[in-house]
């Protein structure tokens, strides 16, 4: 199956086609080019001409258009994303081995071990073709992790769909879930958690974000750059085909090459088997030290890989497109350069190591072709059929694209939205025990709070044998070192409803919750990745939401002392009229937090498995129900202000939880968020089928709230902890010493959740309500 590097790929031998060469471009400066259809603005096109001193060739135009796209260049977000870097203090950098700007950030977790992790979006393809869109989303982020020299060890998926009862939602849900599962399961990567949200704002704009975690030794970190005069540029993995070309097919209407193919699918098609083989092959290449660097091919394919490698390197690069192994010999140069065919990697290899390199790719039956060489020209040059079709400064393609400071302004509707609180709207609150009980069951069965087992049971969480915690626990926990038990916890969060009410606070809340979820497992939070899903940057409303969220997140990261190590921005998630309140999705800054545990076998589960434990409530409850699950599910209401964020309190809480785990005092811990205390109690009881009996008087008395608020408010910084009565005093002191308010709620046991003096819910009834929802809707 392996084609030796020297063997030319088979293809029909047409007469040498008339190509749009560098020479032709210089000779015909006025030829009309379809830059608009390729997504370039007139001034951007003019800038390319200025850079080159002539019009671009068709191939160059293809490269610039895709590399200067929002997706690849971050041109609208760049000026604001720099705040993540500005807010990083030296102290925060302590554990950072590689920061923002590389394929993924790398974090030191001790004992010579490092982990790399990143979350990325694949939103638009997943609406067009849900299965392949989601599958290749997983594939892409996994290749980013491999490029760093790490073995991928876990994935997570953050999914947001339209309303459950919309006729198009099931199509997207089924495709996306089987795509994430079909690809991830076939790679042998445990899926340890994620998010699942249904909301009308995502109708037509589902969000499919995927996170991958990789493990490596410090000395194995690899950065992708093309350095070293004479080094070979090697393309290996799947052949290059016509899938995922997107805008490039427009170039096909230009008759600069004969026999141009018909339009092709713009969504890439994944082959997880090929990717699994690539993972093992790349790890063997790294371990044999026969490769200088590996760059994955994702968005913009060869255009991106060659220009980024050359731009990051210290010289230039020459590539011969005739040596690219093709699935479809009729592809033109622009298409080959833009193809997003999956499961491809580009390596920089020293000439004296090429044979050893080829022996390893051949062992894994991975097709490999030397397509170019590193030189000292300072240029990226590309030939096709013996003619020069690209001659550019790679930096102008990869790193010096346009940067926009787009206008942004607080939306006109924002004040009215914030004024429309649950109190101002006069939403009826349940009061009697029976009303509270019914409300609790309604929320427990609502699609966003129901058991996610229908989804997670389609994902393998056991493979690799290192999963200590996975959904439905608050965070996923993976062992890194089998001898010591050293490992990491990961959690992600974003509440789009909070983001809509106040994007700045919403982003900080997302960070606070992910941070808290990591801490509830007993892990010390260390670092952050984020995927910012927003509407069009060309609408001042959405742009304002993005800027607010970035600033809110950057400030909150600084206050919690956890740096952003990398991530992704997905814009244009909106189809409505500009200026309207519903013009785009809820601002959804997905924030992932990574924490470290010295021994994952001591990680705290989110449920209790023993009767007779004492239940403590850490944190304070306030009358915070705007944007809550209750307002949404019961009243279909969204208005007011999200819960307050108190990052100092979150920090204190996290340190208390880490200590509670380390000292072995706590038996279980569960974060309280959507649905409030009663949802948390029900989830923790259902985890292992052990009920709980609690009294609310402590909370209602101390925090001056009524039973409804005590049960349903979504105040942050709260966790329920189960503790052996013997350790209750000690744990209480530990929390108080950390400055965390603590009170006793009740005890575990029995087969119901009992709220004394109010109501009781048998676990069998709760289980039916919780678990039947998603199977009933999606079967």
């Amino acid at each position, binding site marked *: 199956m392996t084609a030796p590097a020297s063997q030319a790929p088979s293809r029909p031998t047409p007469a040498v086609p008339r190509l749009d060469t560098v020479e032709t471009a210089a000779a015909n400066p006025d030829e009309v080019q379809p830059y608009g259809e390729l997504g370039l603005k007139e001034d951007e096109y003019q800038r390319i001409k200025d850079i080159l001193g002539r019009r671009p060739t068709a191939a160059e135009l293809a490269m610039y258009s895709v590399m200067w796209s929002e997706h690849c260049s971050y041109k609208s977000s760049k000026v604001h994303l720099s705040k993540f870097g500005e807010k990083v203090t030296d102290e925060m950098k302590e554990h950072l081995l590689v920061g923002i700007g590389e394929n993924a950030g790398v974090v030191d977790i001790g004992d010579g071990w490092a982990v790399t992790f990143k979350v990325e979006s694949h939103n638009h393809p997943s609406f067009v073709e849900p299965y392949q869109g989601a599958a290749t989303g997983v594939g892409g982020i996994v290749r980013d992790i491999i490029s760093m020299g790490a073995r991928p060890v876990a994935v997570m998926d953050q999914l947001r769909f339209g309303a459950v009862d919309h006729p198009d939602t099931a199509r997207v849900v089924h495709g996306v879930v*089987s795509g994430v*599962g*079909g690809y991830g*399961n*076939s*790679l*042998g990567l445990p899926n340890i958690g994620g998010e699942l949200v249904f909301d009308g704002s995502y109708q037509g704009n589902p969000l499919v974000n995927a996170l991958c975690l990789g493990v490596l030794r410090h000395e194995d970190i690899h950065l992708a750059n093309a350095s070293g005069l004479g080094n070979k540029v090697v393309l290996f993995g799947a052949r290059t085909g016509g899938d995922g070309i997107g805008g490039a097919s427009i170039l096909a209407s230009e008759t600069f090459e004969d026999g141009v193919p018909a339009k092709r699918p713009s969504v890439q098609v994944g*082959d*997880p*088997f*090929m990717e*699994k*083989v690539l993972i093992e092959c790349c790890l063997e290449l790294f371990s044999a030290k026969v490769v200088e660097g590996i760059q994955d091919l994702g968005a913009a394919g060869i255009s991106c890989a060659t220009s980024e490698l050359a731009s990051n390197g210290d010289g230039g690069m020459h590539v011969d497109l005739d040596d690219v192994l093709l699935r479809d010999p009729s592809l033109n140069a622009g298409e080959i350069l833009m193809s997003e065919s999956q499961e491809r990697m580009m390596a920089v290899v020293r000439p004296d190591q090429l044979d050893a390199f080829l022996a390893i790719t051949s062992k*894994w*039956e991975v097709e490999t072709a030397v397509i170019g060489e590193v030189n000292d020209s300072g240029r990226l040059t590309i030939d096709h059929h013996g003619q020069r079709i690209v001659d550019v400064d790679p930096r102008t393609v990869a790193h010096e694209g346009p940067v926009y400071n787009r206008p942004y302004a607080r939306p006109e509707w924002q004040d009215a939205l914030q004024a429309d609180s649950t109190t101002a709207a006069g939403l009826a609150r349940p009061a009697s025990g029976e009303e509270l009980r019914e409300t609790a069951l309604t929320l427990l069965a609502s699609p966003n709070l129901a058991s996610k087992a229908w989804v*997670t*049971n*389609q*994902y*393998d*969480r*056991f*493979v*690799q*044998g*290192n*999963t*200590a*915690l996975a959904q439905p626990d608050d965070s996923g926990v993976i*062992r890194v070192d*089998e001898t010591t*038990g050293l490992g990491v916890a990961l959690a992600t969060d974003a509440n789009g409803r909070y983001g809509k009410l106040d994007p700045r606070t919403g982003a900080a809340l997302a960070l606070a919750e992910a941070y808290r979820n990591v801490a509830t497992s007993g892990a010390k939070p260390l670092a952050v990745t984020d995927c910012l899903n927003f509407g069009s940057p060309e609408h001042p409303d959405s742009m304002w939401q993005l800027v607010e969220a970035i600033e809110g997140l950057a400030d909150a990261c600084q206050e919690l002392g956890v740096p952003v190590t990398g991530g992704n921005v997905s814009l244009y998630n909106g189809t409505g009229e500009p200026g309207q309140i519903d013009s785009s999705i809820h601002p959804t800054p997905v924030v992932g937090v990574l924490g470290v545990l010295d*021994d*994952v*076998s*001591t990680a*705290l*589960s989110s*449920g209790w*498995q*023993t009767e007779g434990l004492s239940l403590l409530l850490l944190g304070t409850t306030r009358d915070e129900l705007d944007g809550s699950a209750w307002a949404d599910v019961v009243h279909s209401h969204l208005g007011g202000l999200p819960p307050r964020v108190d990052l100092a309190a979150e920090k204190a809480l996290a340190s208390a939880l880490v200590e509670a785990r380390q000292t*072995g005092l706590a*038996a*279980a811990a569960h974060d309280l968020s959507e649905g409030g205390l009663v949802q948390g109690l029900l989830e923790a009881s259902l985890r*292992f089928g052990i009920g709980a009996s609690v009294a609310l008087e402590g909370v209602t008395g101390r925090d001056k709230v009524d039973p409804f608020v005590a049960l349903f408010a979504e105040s942050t910084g709260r966790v329920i902890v189960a503790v*052996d009565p013997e350790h209750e005093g000690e744990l209480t002191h530990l929390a108080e010493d950390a400055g965390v308010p603590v009170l006793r709620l009740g005890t575990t046991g029995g087969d119901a959740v009992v709220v004394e003096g109010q109501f009781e819910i048998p676990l069998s009834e709760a289980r039916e309500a919780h678990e039947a929802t998603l199977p009933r809707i999606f079967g």
Partner: protein
Amino acid sequence: MSAIEPTPAATSVPGIEGARIGVITFPGTLDDRDAARAVRLAGAEAVSLWHADASLQDVDAVVLPGGFSYGDYLRAGAISRFAPAMAAVVDAANGGMPVLGICNGFQVLTEAHLLPGSMVKNDHLHFVCREQSLIVENARTAWTNEFRRGQQIKIPLKNQDGQFVADERTLDELEGEGRVVFRYDGWNPNGSRRDIAGITNDRGNVVGLMPHPEHAVERGFGPASAEGPRAGVDGLTFFTSVLSSLVHA
């Protein structure tokens, strides 16, 4: 739950020093590292075997681990069964060497005709991952002799094409000869005929099953048990069983 003690390697089985158990890796195999870990935790040496290598390196037993060898393209296990290593496995199995096929490994064993029947797509058409209860029906095979007949065990199950099918005559034969080794307990997760989760050959040295014993060998990383979350280690008994069968062979 509180701190979970790591499982020490079981070294109590007498006479197993030096036992070597091979784990074959095909392109697309996923659970090979897990199977090797299970072998080590049982107290034996795990030997990595490569599909393209016809030598079994003098191992005492072989595990065909789970995964999606060759992407399950054509049919699960259909391509792997032609690997050079498989010719050696067929010969060794016919000579009495213990062979365990887990999930995709089970599919390869049926394709190689070491075990009867075949696996088709789950009846509900979804991939399924769950902690699965099984009843041990045959505690005399090389891989189950340390269980009790009728014992209920719990190990993870995860598959897309896990529905065991065979014609009625074959199923009757399997039942009549006591060659059904495991049956699903409670819910049948994939529509397998007669709730069959695992079978053996007439000699009892070759066992294939869909669930994954190698994922239930270490406290803290297995299915839930009465001992605590993820504390289940029922899978370890497969590997200690084969060591004792090697001693008594």
